[in-house]
């Protein structure tokens, strides 16, 4: 793609999300989300391969449906309340409709079916943008609406954790696994959103760090299938050490950073006397841990059979800039001891 066009699309992506962040009016918020969607469409389809076009088309249909529903709900809310303020959604019907539209936007269960197929059709960089940046604007709007009844958030969150873990069980394509991982993590965010929004913010920040480092690792080794993970040791040996730790951090195991949001969320749910819910969420995340462990096993504890020495790839300096990967990997692995400092920074 020509650099000016590429730059324009990337700037539009940033503009759309920033516009949504800065808005208090439903129209402006919706417009920001639409700019985001329209900006990423050419990025997804730039390869002109059939699978990428298919993923782009499916993504466009889903996002257009969700945007239309969101706009309808915003207009209905304005009609009923007489004002366009995003934070004022007293009617259950409109707030539920808005929540479902935004849930479809970010791929929460039960509106998640599009996510694995779309991710499978994209390259890893576009998949990273889809998993991280594209979630920010809708999550901000969900944060703003704050429905009176948190039951819908609890239902969506718990279902997403279960579906995200169950769905990734028998996947061997890494992009689909990352899609289900995204669904599960979004479930955790939505679960705690109505009880402690700063914790949801913490969860999303840590999720972005972990996902960025994992995607970057896969981009460096150019792996998209679980089988090709077993040859990582021949390409970049240090990644064979760090990527399993990133995966275990995504699974929420201490003493890695990924444990921090889960720990805080479970603690907050216990404070809210929702111990059964916390137990179910914790047990459901074991499904996700299973396939993260499977990836770690494939990468570190497996040698591919009959790998002749003559076919080892040349270990050249990587073409990509590895500084972001280094920073995010360090954050993904080592931030847990800083939990008290991070909690003190959170606006509770």
């Amino acid at each position, binding site marked *: 793609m*020509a650099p000016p066009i590429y730059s324009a699309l990337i700037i539009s992506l940033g503009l759309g999300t920033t516009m949504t962040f800065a808005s208090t009016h439903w129209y402006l918020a919706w417009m920001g989300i639409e700019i985001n969607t329209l900006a990423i469409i050419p990025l997804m389809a730039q*390869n*002109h*391969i*059939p*699978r990428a*076009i*298919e993923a782009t*088309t499916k993504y466009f249909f889903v996002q257009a449906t969700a945007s239309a529903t969101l706009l309808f709900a915003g207009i209905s809310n304005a009609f009923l309340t007489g004002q366009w303020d995003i934070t004022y959604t007293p009617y259950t019907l409109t707030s539920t409709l808005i929540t479902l539209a935004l849930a479809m936007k970010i791929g929460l269960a039960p509106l998640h079916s599009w996510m694995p197929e779309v991710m*499978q059709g994209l390259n890893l960089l576009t998949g990273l943008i889809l998993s991280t940046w594209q979630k920010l604007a809708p999550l901000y709007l969900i944060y703003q609406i704050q429905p009176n009844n948190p039951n819908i958030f609890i239902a969506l969150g718990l279902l997403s954790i279960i579906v995200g873990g169950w769905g990734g*069980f*028998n*996947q*061997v*394509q890494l992009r689909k696994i990352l899609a289900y991982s995204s669904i599960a993590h979004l479930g955790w965010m939505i679960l705690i959103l109505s009880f402690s929004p700063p914790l949801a913010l913490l969860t999303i920040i840590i999720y972005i760090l972990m996902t960025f480092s994992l995607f970057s690792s896969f981009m460096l080794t150019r792996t998209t*299938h*679980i*089988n090709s993970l*077993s*040859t990582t040791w021949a390409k970049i040996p240090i990644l064979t050490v760090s990527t399993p730790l990133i995966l275990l951090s995504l699974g929420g195991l201490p003493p890695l950073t990924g444990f921090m949001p889960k720990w805080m969320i479970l603690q907050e749910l216990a404070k809210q006397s929702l111990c059964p819910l916390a137990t179910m969420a914790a047990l459901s995340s074991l499904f996700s841990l299973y396939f993260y462990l*499977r990836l770690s096993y*494939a990468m570190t504890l*497996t040698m*591919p*059979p*009959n*790998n*002749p020495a*003559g*076919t080892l*790839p040349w270990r050249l300096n990587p073409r990509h800039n590895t500084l972001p990967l280094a920073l995010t990997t360090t954050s993904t692995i080592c931030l847990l001891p800083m939990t008290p400092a991070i909690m003190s920074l959170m606006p509770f």
Partner: protein
Amino acid sequence: MSLPNISRVSASGLLRSSCDLRWLLRSVAPLAAPRRALTHMGYRRPGQPREDRPPWWRVKFDLAKGLKGMKRHFKLLKEEFFAPFVGPMGKPIIEHMLEQNQVLWEFRGPHSLQEWTISCDREIGGKSEIYLKVGRNNESCLLYGTLCSDPPKDGETRYSGYCTMRSKQPLASFDRKKYHDWSSFNTLHLRVRGDGRPWMINIVPETYYTHQKDDMYSYFLYTRGGPYWQDVKIPFSKFFLAHRGRIQDDQHPVWLDKINSIGFTLGDKADGPFQLEIDFIGVCKDYAHTEDFAYEKYKRNPEV
């Protein structure tokens, strides 16, 4: 019965004869493999009368067959339900990760021919013939026939002369589409014995848009005529994209995670008999082959 005579048969005669394929096919050789019946095609040859029969007239309603079918589908559904408990695609993950070779089709008896379908230009009025039968000692399959490049005299078709054998779409329970997942592998491995003719191997992946339904990825299979078997290994990076037989400018490698079927086509314009014996068709992972794609992409608007 020659084709011009069919148009003089009455409609009721056509209805009776549509159930009997021998009326429509010139050959009376016993059918060892299913072939596409002329009545089931979407293409109507120029000059043929339009079918006025409603579509349900072609369906043979049979309670016993229906019950047998339901039993088969529920059995498949049960297998599909319990397969994920074993691992991806019904096999343990360790087997999935460690396997380097997988035999997809091994011709060891008449049952193995049920997964294949054969076709030739007879469907458009040509004169080629093709048959598929089990080879000697049930050790292979033999695809044989006669190629004839004479175009049908319908005033419309200019070229003719093809014979093809294609695997059927794998189906899950209740006739839902299933796909082959060859993403763990990078090479197609065949053991064949030919007669020196050049064949074309066509891989048809799953597509999304209707204008992509004729997309296929092709490569050549040059056979030797000798009595010795030939092990052919073709990397998937060599397959190029063609649409309705025309090679496309915008090329890309074939995506192997959703493959519908694989086929062999003969269309070398050399009229006469042909034979191709196939022992097995499989896929393998060649770690020495690191090529992504063998062809340069043709840039229609190059940057200057």
